[in-house]
């Protein structure tokens, strides 16, 4: 069964192939086609005592037995394969680094997904939306498909199933390094998006719930209707396409305004009961003369502020100006 992660055996086989990189592809294939299988066989037989040794020595032995020339001496060409091979050899030299290497191998699938996400995020940031995509996750099914497609490609590339040509194999290391460098950038971008989203949510939540006309975000606090002579039309009503009143910001729909009743002569209790019944929310009392608190019935409304007949919003404070009943 093929494993999702690459085994140390595969890395060893790749390291051996890297040591043979100066040979033709056919020669390398002839020598190492079923090297993984052979190493697996040895591993199965030798168990924990299995030690394939150094990939360089293994390759040299193979090359000599095959009658193939030793690699040209002098400065060795620095290839991606050689870097990979040397890194693997270095990690495998010591128990401690070998454990770290195996741990890293286990995390490879996570990395394949992460690098795809980084590519997706930065692609949208950089290309589609000029550096401000306002997204941490896809916003549409097409974008989800795009992200999933990138992830599938990344995983298949990681599993050596797709893009196995030399070109991609060579390109994958620099791309991985680039993605690794871009991870902190992505975290920065993600953090910034998170802050923006939080800010917008807070801003929206803090917007007053009152209806009111706004133009370009600015509250329109007054509306005036003038006739053709430029005279103010009092009590004009402006309606929208649905017949609903258009009101200035902070103003109350005229239909909701309450007319202040004439309360003159009513005692305090009667006046307050009446106002409550009519829906006035805020009532204040202003004593014009000193009233004995034990005799509230002696207090009568002289007049209201605003005066009777005025129209006010239900939340506007109506003041009852109270005098003493004339005896």
């Amino acid at each position, binding site marked *: *069964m093929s494993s999702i992660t690459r085994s140390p055996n595969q890395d060893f086989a790749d390291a051996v192939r890297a040591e043979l990189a100066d040979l033709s592809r056919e020669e390398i294939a002839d020598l*190492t086609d*079923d*090297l993984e*299988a052979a190493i697996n066989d040895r591993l199965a037989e030798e168990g924990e005592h299995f030690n394939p040794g150094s990939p360089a020595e293994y*390759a040299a*032995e*193979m090359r000599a*037995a*095959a009658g193939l020339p030793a690699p040209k001496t002098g400065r060795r060409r620095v290839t991606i394969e050689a870097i990979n091979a040397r890194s693997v050899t270095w990690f495998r030299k010591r128990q401690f680094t070998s454990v770290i290497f195996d741990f890293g191998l286990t995390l490879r699938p996570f990395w394949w997904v992460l690098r795809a996400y980084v590519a997706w995020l930065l692609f949208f940031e950089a290309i589609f939306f000029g550096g401000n995509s306002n997204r941490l996750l896809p916003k549409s099914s097409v974008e989800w498909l795009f992200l999933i497609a990138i992830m599938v490609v990344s995983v298949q590339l990681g599993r050596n199933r797709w893009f196995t040509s030399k070109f991609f194999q060579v390109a994958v290391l620099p791309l991985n390094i680039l993605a690794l460098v871009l991870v902190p950038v992505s975290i920065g971008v993600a953090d910034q998006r998170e802050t923006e989203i939080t800010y917008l949510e807070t801003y929206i939540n803090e917007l007053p719930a009152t209806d009111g006309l706004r133009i370009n975000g600015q509250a329109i606090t007054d509306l005036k209707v003038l006739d053709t002579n430029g005279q103010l039309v009092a009590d004009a009503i402006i309606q929208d396409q649905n017949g609903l009143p258009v009101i200035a910001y902070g103003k109350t729909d005229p239909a909701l305004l309450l007319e202040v009743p004439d309360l003159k002569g009513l005692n305090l209790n009667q006046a307050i009961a009446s106002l409550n019944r009519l829906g006035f929310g805020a009532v204040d009392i202003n004593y014009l003369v000193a009233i004995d608190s034990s005799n509230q019935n002696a207090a009568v409304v002289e007049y209201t502020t605003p005066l009777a007949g005025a129209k006010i919003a239900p939340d506007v404070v109506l003041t009852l100006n109270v005098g003493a009943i004339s005896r």
Partner: protein
Amino acid sequence: MDSTQLLKGVLDVAVLAVIEHEDGYGYDIVRRLRQAGIEDVGDASVYGTLRRLFSAGALTSYVVASGDGPHRKYYGINTEGKQMLATQRKSWVQFSSIMTRLLEPTKKTAHRGGTK
């Protein structure tokens, strides 16, 4: 004497001999050699030898897919390989008997000592 040095010269014929009657894949051939007593043989040497014998036209090769594992490249001996094996077997028999005679000093030394 280091037997791995001796083996270098005869690994070709040893490999041909173990697949003379039955095809085998790389590690299987290593196993047969070890079972035959050549315990120090390195698998890398065997794979290299197989590749060289194949290039020389002494072997046939085919891949057998495995249901639950990696595919295996099998090697079999062909007519040319059999001729090569026969020639090398003859050479080895001659060479080894010479070497055996050469390296059996006790009788000769005693005989020579007796004539003096």
